């Protein structure tokens, strides 16, 4: 595809999205909610078909778990957003004199990861439509078919409730020529930096997230996590181990909020190790750690190997050339260091987890901090404890948008399953993760809120004598005293 063709394809997508945005601006809350309901129901209805399609196409994860992800992306997201006011006047506080009006933001580009394609498409479409914004789905090159089919199903449902035409589009559908496919990067870049694009919702690898931020268009980008999970002495160990296994094995570990390293104090290490073994965790020998490291980590890319992402324990063992007991659920690697010298201390989205034993609480906390800052800044951290002081200390030291307590981190980070966080498949990582928010990104982040400010005079300011403003001899404390007079 020549640059001219690519530009014209981008212009057509944006033109259609802009027209849809224009029509969307007229919709009432009631009409918007009808559209969102129809879309969520279509997503839920097709949860099994889409999950199977995603696994078949990407060869990543477990279809049964992807069904659950589709339920989360449709039903739980809908439950979370259905009562939000997102059109017109959304609040009116007469005492404060502030009336808030929600306006749509305009066309959104939704970048979809290979690990969770169908659920992320449903989620991003729901929050975009709820806020009356058109959305352009940009599928991962290895998940085009399943992403586009999901978007198509959602679009059909939206149209059944008279949604604006082209409120859902997709940037490619897999029918492109080899030349067009090769030019996809330039096409994406042109799309991301188009002046009429309002926002990018980027979920994926660090490359695409950086590209989104570099485009000049406002973006919510979510990249890597490297989630430490600390099991404190006050935790119920069998419960903690069971929950970590539920989380880390879910969809073969593809969720970026999944645990990457277990940290325990020496005093309970033996008990934790025994419990992991009891629940079918397999501790790798030193030789096996070396073999797994070589296979699981791509030193050239300085990142997890794409060959392990979302693969089963059995498959990973086969590929790494190690023998493991039948029924093993998780591969566990004793580690001493954190950083480039210890590849398994990095984010690896599959059922491999690092295991650290610390001399005491402070050392354990330091290891968690090192892990947190080693590629997972701002994302998530996990803690099992029944001691409030420990909870507070751990949370204060972590640099994480969400600290998930006594629950599986994968499902806990997503929200709506084990806690009351907003259900989201785009988890904000704060400024250290180059995000503008630490929130679980949802419909609330996709509106421009206008505030109508009624006159409510600041009487303390108005009562000040004019001379006070211009008299440099008046000290700051005198000025403050005058300002606060009769108001303390």
């Amino acid at each position: 595809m020549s640059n001219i063709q690519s530009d014209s394809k981008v212009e057509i997508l944006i033109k259609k999205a802009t027209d849809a945005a224009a029509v969307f601006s007229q919709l009432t809350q009631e009409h918007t909610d009808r559209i969102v309901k129809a879309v969520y129901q279509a997503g839920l209805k097709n949860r099994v078909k889409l999950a199977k399609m995603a696994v078949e196409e990407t060869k990543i994860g477990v279809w049964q778990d992807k069904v659950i992800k589709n339920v989360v992306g449709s039903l739980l997201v809908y439950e979370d957003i259905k009562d939000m006011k997102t059109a017109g006047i959304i609040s009116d506080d007469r005492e404060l004199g502030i009336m808030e009006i929600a306006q749509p933001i305009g066309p959104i580009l939704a970048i979809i990861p290979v690990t969770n394609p169908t659920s992320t498409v449903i989620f991003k479409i729901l929050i975009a439509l709820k806020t009356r914004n058109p959305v352009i789905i940009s599928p991962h090159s290895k998940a085009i078919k399943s992403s586009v089919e999901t978007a198509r199903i959602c679009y059909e449902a939206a149209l059944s409730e008279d949604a604006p035409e082209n409120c859902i589009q997709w940037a490619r559908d897999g029918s492109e020529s080899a030349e067009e496919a090769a030019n996809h990067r330039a096409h994406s870049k042109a799309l991301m930096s188009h002046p009429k694009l309002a926002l990018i919702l980027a979920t994926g690898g660090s490359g695409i997230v950086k590209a989104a931020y570099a485009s000049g268009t406002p973006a919510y980008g979510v990249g890597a996590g490297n989630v430490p999970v600390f099991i404190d002495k006050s935790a119920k160990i069998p419960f903690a181990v069971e929950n970590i296994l539920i989380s880390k094995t879910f969809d073969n570990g593809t969720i970026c909020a999944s645990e990457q390293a277990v940290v325990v104090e020496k005093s309970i290490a033996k008990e934790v190790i025994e419990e992991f073994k009891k629940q079918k965790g397999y501790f790798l020998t030193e030789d096996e750690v070396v073999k797994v490291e070589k296979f699981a980590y791509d030193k050239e890319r300085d990142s997890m190997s794409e060959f392990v992402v979302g693969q089963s324990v059995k498959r990973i063992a086969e590929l790494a050339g190690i023998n493991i007991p039948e029924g093993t659920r998780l591969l566990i690697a004793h580690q001493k260091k954190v950083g480039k010298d210890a590849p398994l201390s990095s984010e690896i989205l599959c059922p491999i987890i690092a295991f650290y034993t610390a001399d005491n609480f402070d050392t354990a906390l330091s290891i968690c901090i090192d892990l947190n800052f080693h590629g997972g800044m701002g994302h998530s951290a996990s803690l099992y404890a029944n001691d409030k002081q420990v909870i507070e200390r751990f949370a204060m030291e972590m640099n994480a948008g969400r600290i998930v307590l006594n629950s599986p981190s994968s499902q806990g980070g997503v929200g709506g399953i084990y806690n009351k966080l907003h259900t989201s498949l785009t988890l904000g990582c704060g400024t250290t993760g180059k995000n503008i928010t630490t929130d679980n990104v949802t419909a609330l982040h996709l509106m421009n809120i206008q505030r109508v400010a009624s006159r409510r005079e600041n009487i303390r300011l108005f009562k000040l004598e004019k001379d006070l403003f211009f008299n440099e001899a008046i000290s700051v404390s005198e000025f403050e005293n005058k300002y606060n007079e009769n108001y303390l």
Partner: protein
Amino acid sequence: MSFEFVKPDSSKVIFKFDGRLDTIKCRELDEKVVEKAKDCKTIVFDLEKVSYVSSSFLRICSICAQLANSGGFSFINVSPSIRKVFKISGIDNLIKAEV
């Protein structure tokens, strides 16, 4: 029928639309409008009684703007909310919208 039209002379047509011009309604009137507008140099859309326009209506506007070579196509009696739709879509760059 969601529109009426008058032809003050053979080169001018004024369409008066009514109600919600949603996708289904536009599908009904699309060809009829184009048929009546195709030989006219001046095409006017009166939107006084229109409460909602769909993407399909924007497309009809673009076609009529082309038929009338842009300069001869205009709107009258456009409500503020529909004026905003024209602004967001950029259709007001193609045509003349009069209140």
